[in-house]
């Protein structure tokens, strides 16, 4: 029996369930407004741009680039410092906060605009979308 991870884990709400159901299947799911064609994140049942409710769930490519980041040296439950907290801008437009993994936590290895791709790491009952460098 493995001990429970002390890493803080998300608890989905009805509005975000499709996102976390998607990560469990290895999919990154965004939403798109059929009225104004905005693709958006975080998940909610109406468009954050025009507030209309005719929205659909879309599967994102999982590809993007490293928009900005910090290398945290702080003690965080479930993390071994230093670790990289990054903001990834997805090819579809929205940005999300994540960890950049499979690369040394070293600024020389992490130039801004670095191409990245999603990898899904299962922790407890949930799969977290993390990102690793990819060949452009």
């Amino acid at each position: 029996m493995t001990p429970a991870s002390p890493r803080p884990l998300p608890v989905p709400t009805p509005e975000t369930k499709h996102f976390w159901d998607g990560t469990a299947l290895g999919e990154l799911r965004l939403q798109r407004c059929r009225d104004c064609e905005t693709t958006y994140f975080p998940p909610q049942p109406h468009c954050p741009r025009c507030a209309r409710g005719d929205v659909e769930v879309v599967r994102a490519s999982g590809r993007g680039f490293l928009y900005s980041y910090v290398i945290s040296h702080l003690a965080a439950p479930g993390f071994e410092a230093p670790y990289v907290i990054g903001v990834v801008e997805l090819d579809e437009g929205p940005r999300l906060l994540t960890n950049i993994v499979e690369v040394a936590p070293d600024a020389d290895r992490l130039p801004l605009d670095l191409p990245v791709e999603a990898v899904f790491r299962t922790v407890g009952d949930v799969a977290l979308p993390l990102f690793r460098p990819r060949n452009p």
Partner: protein
Amino acid sequence: MTRGSAVAIVGAAESAEIGTVSLSSLGLAAGAARRALADCGLAPADVDGVAMSGLNPYLPTLLAHSLGIEAGWIDATMVGGCSNLVHLRHAVAAIRQGQSEVVLIAHGESGRSHIGGAAFRPTPDSWQGQFELPFGTVGPMTLLTLGALRFLRDRGLDRRALADVVVAQRGWAAHNPRALRRDPVTVAQVLEAPPVAYPFTRPMCCVTTDAGGALVVTSAERARDLPRPPVYVLGSGEATGAAMASQMPDLTSSDAFRRAGAGAFADAGIGPSDIEHAMLYDATAILPLMALEDLGFVASGDSGGFVADGHTAVGGRLPVNTNGGGLNYTHSGMYGMYALQESVRQLRGEAAAQVAGLRTSLTHAIGGMFQAAATAVLSTEPG
């Protein structure tokens, strides 16, 4: 839109002690409130409005009960570190409309010792709990810093620009006997200090203190009968930002800063070039750089050079964070009250590092992780 009648800060005080203080958060606030009332020669019975906020929703009630105030106007607006600036703005409106005559705004926070106050942590089903906390975010030092590398890269700057902010403000802190960090530092020393969240080192992140502060606000008419020089609220602005730092439309510029600042200048009827002194909330060293640009003191991209050239330092043309700032002086978690206190001291001519002949001062504060902002334009003249 017509400007209303003038409203002034007539009493101001910080808690008797800061740093490590053997008092609860409420005790720090109530102590500062008593000192602010004594400062302007008023008694609790003169106060008819109370404003205070933190994680307890009933703080105005606790403050009023503690001091024997029977309040008929309440503001518990809680939008993080800029809340006390929002309270000031709301108090000005209330006094102009006759809803209150004398408002007491208080803040107290056992930010270091954690006596008698709740700690904020987003629940795991909130947006932050789902989309930020699982990735190891640890509050301000990992969230207020998130866009800094992009900010620097876009401007052709590097980490030295963050260190320049620390060095400039340490020069002010050297004159403030209450400041926690007072020793002179060099850019090299700041860069070589222990990392907190790259590109930030420890001196680029604020101190943590127990502290309190309070303001007494009333009409210019009432201020005439009171002993201290009135500090007039020429204008103010408040704004919401993105719900999460990672979802800001542009992580190198705060839309909340821009709208709060523009609102305050429009309200005051003056512009950035009329401001002689500025307090720019600095939980981390990137915030004053962003505020200098977003409030229009310099063009976008010019903040790093402006600080490096010494314009915000002792002897500079726009003295910034003259108490040493949150980086060096005090930061209990919500810093806005202490920024306001220094603007008031400077305009009264009683600051530890006094700048001669000031007529205008701007205070700007952030709430949460860029989730809100507020700006106040203060003056020795009613406008």
